[in-house]
């Protein structure tokens, strides 16, 4: 039930973030706030870069709800009634929160419940009940209902620190009225475990939605994926209302034929295709087309055709497919920001790293078109020999497999080898 409170310039909202894909969270939320015409402004009293508490300010409740209706990085949102570094400070803070802002949610004919959430610590039930008791001075006139309350409130405590030496006391506490949850349920609903058609490198649901949000996909947008594979990124974009199209150099993947990726399946079934993936979730009307094509030779006419291009290009190590034109290059030095592609019409918005193994990671680069394309700005980049992105990319593949070769030699006689 969405009951909006009276929000003025001093309303602050607490977004409780999921503790995964840490680097991707703030860019996702920033992008979503901007979709709804707002700037993400937050209080630096928390560290949302690594902890789950984000205190948003100078925004109204309606915008917060719109963002929560899209995000997969935030678990829930609360209207903050009080904060403090200790429970005592919180109580003091709560006593200064305007009564007229509390009263709509404390009426005698309504029901409520208070829950306690602690980050980095599991609190015994007795402690939780004591803390709830400390808040009983608040002006609730209604009754408690633990299963289906009209209003839910939450005491959130931050015990951030060493996991092996958890502090006795929280460093920060919040109390707020629960507004709504984020869209993390999409992760289960769209899980690739139950997807009709997958490949070896199908993007998982969480990241697909994160990427679509970074790209600010909106209903009626047209989205293109030049390395579409089995269409995971198109599924996420279509869920958010876009019309989707994709290309891939691999005929088998585009046509949904050939060897299957699932362990218990040899060949792909007759109804496996990118379109069938969209049908699975009722999104078939958002499907435009897919084609077999080389991403380095796009078949599109000139002009601003797409609102977003969202893709996961091949790294050269996991899908069996025929390569385009092979290029040779030397081994790269350590990763540096220089290798991020540059274009005079594009501005870098974010660069989020995801760790894959102990010595590999991948980055999600988000760029925004800031000016129209003209021939003049194209030529200087072509002449710049340093700007060949394939040089480094192919070098990653060489480096990756050089490690594999060394290990295989070591394991000779043990009968093991890497599968690619």
């Amino acid at each position, binding site marked *: 039930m969405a009951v909006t409170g009276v929000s003025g310039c001093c309303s602050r909202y607490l977004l409780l973030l999921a503790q995964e894909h840490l680097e991707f969270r703030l860019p996702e939320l920033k992008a979503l706030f901007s979709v709804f015409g707002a700037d993400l402004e937050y209080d630096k009293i928390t560290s949302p870069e690594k902890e789950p508490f984000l205190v948003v300010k100078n925004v109204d409740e309606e915008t917060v709800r719109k963002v929560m209706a899209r995000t997969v990085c935030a678990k829930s949102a609360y209207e903050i009634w009080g904060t403090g570094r200790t429970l005592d400070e919180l109580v003091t803070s709560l006593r200064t929160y305007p009564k007229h802002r509390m009263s709509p949610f404390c009426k005698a004919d309504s029901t409520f419940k208070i829950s306690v959430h602690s980050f980095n610590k599991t609190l015994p039930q007795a402690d939780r009940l004591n803390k709830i008791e400390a808040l009983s001075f608040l002006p609730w006139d209604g009754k408690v209902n633990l299963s289906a309350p009209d209003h839910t409130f939450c005491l959130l405590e931050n015990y951030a620190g060493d996991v092996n030496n958890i502090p006795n006391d929280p460093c920060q506490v919040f109390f707020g009225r629960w507004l709504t949850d984020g869209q993390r349920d999409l992760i289960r609903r769209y899980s690739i475990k139950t997807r009709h058609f997958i490949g070896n490198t199908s993007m998982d649901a969480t990241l697909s939605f994160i990427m679509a949000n970074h790209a600010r996909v909106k209903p009626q947008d047209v989205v293109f994926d030049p390395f579409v594979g089995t269409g995971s990124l198109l599924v996420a974009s279509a869920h958010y209302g876009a019309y989707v199209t994709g290309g891939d150099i691999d*005929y088998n993947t585009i*046509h949904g034929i050939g060897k299957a990726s699932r362990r218990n399946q040899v060949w792909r079934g007759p109804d496996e295709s990118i379109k069938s993936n969209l049908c699975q979730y009722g999104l078939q009307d958002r499907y*435009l087309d897919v*084609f077999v094509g080389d991403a380095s030779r796009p*078949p599109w006419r000139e*002009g*601003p055709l797409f609102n977003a291009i969202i893709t996961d290009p091949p790294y050269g190590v996991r899908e069996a497919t025929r390569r385009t034109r092979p290029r040779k290059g030397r081994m790269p030095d350590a990763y540096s920001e220089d290798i991020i592609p540059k274009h005079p019409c594009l501005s870098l918005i974010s660069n989020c790293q995801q760790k894959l193994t102990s010595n590999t990671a991948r980055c999600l680069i988000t760029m925004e078109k800031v000016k129209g394309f003209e021939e003049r700005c194209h030529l200087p980049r072509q002449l710049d020999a340093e700007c060949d992105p394939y040089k480094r990319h192919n070098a990653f593949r060489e480096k990756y497999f050089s490690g594999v070769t060394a290990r295989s030699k070591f394991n000779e006689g043990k009968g093991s080898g890497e599968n690619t």
Partner: protein
Amino acid sequence: MKLLTHNMLTSHVKGVVSGYPLRIKAKEVQLNAVDFNAEFISRMIPKLEWKALREAAESVGHLNDLPLEVPSEHQDNEEFLQKVHHVLMEVEVEEGVLQCPESGHEFPISKGIPNMLLNEDDV
């Protein structure tokens, strides 16, 4: 392949200057119902090459009375938007080829999916 997609595709054969629009030589055309979304159609219209759309629709036998020019205030013209929607989204070429108007090179369409790959010589 929908006619909306066809409107955006061009021939990228080596040396070709006027590779747009590709000529549709259809062996099989299907009609599939797609939900009408007035806002989407309205937004797409300014992006379309209108003449190429009419030619393509006519070549597959589904011109659907599309006018020679886009009427002004098209976003409020529901009847017009419905006509455009039908041609863009509901007419699909299942089998056939797309022919480059300059070089004659043919890109096959199979099961509704165009194959835009070129040999090394043609690139």
